[in-house]
């Protein structure tokens, strides 16, 4: 089992390098490279839409990666770069939409849905907790109970 996990982990690590889009790492400085990779995973490829620019083969994604590399090399901050992208392509270019009036429902939906589920579950459980005695009384009269017992005996 342990060997299996180790093999799978090795394969996954390998797969990551295989799937990296640009042949060579963009920066020799590991810190810049980490920033570059983080940002490419935050930006959407607008042609393919469901891929980040890190994963996309589209030429526009390649252009945006190039732009990104140059901006990082020029010493721009992450926020500068994200602003640059949203100024041109809108919030849609961000994989993680900003929290604002327009996106309140989007961001709060998971919490609201969990809350609704908890409330529903609570109601059902409370009702069940009150039921058993009444239910057995309702479902079968004492006579019927006696009769069913007699039949099983």
């Amino acid at each position, binding site marked *: 089992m342990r060997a299996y996990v180790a093999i799978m982990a090795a394969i996954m690590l390998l797969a990551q390098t295989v799937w990296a889009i640009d042949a060579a790492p963009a920066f020799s400085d590991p810190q810049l490279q980490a920033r570059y990779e983080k940002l490419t995973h935050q930006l959407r490829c607008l042609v393919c839409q469901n891929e980040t620019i890190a994963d996309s083969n589209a030429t*526009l994604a390649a*252009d945006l990666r190039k732009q990104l590399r140059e901006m990082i090399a020029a010493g721009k901050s992450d926020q500068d770069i994200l602003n640059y992208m949203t*100024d041109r392509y809108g919030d849609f270019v961000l994989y993680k939409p900003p929290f604002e009036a327009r996106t309140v429902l989007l961001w709060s939906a998971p919490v609201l849905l969990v809350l609704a589920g908890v409330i529903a579950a609570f109601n059902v459980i409370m009702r069940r907790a009150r039921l058993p005695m009444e239910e057995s009384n309702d479902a079968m009269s004492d006579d019927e109970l006696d009769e069913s017992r007699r039949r099983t005996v």
Partner: protein
Amino acid sequence: MWRYAIPVAIFAVLFGFLFVGLNRDPSYVPSPLIGKHAPAFSLTTVEDPNKQVSPEDFHGKPFVLNVWGTWCAECRREHETLLEISRQGLAPIVGLNWKDERESAEQWLRQLGDPYAATAFDPEGRAGIDWGVYGAPETFLIDANGVIVYKHIAPLTMEVWNREFVPRIRAGGGRS
């Protein structure tokens, strides 16, 4: 009684969201550039590597910026419409030849006709990024003050031109 209303309400909300979603084009990305000043560029023209063209050259009256490339099949389909629009002469069309080769672009204009007042050559797509272009064809309308007032994504048709562009050009302080 209201226990039955809850599933119905949930269904109605879901139905509403999904129904609206059905009629939306997921490939349409609204441009944040509407209402903003047209991004500047200074590129050479397709025809002449020594001649520069910039959106500034066309400020003072409304103009159209059309993004195209010879690799783009939809652009070919759109070309006839652009020729007709240029014959109308309501507003000049500036071409932005995006991520293309100069020779192919020149040949395209020779063979199919040239509807453009000038065509900027943007092989690396820099100006394209500045204009928020993510596909071709895309067509922008810039008013007399140099502000982008409309963007059409997908091939331009006379119907779209007459409905979206013409009234805006007439309202945009154009002298034409």
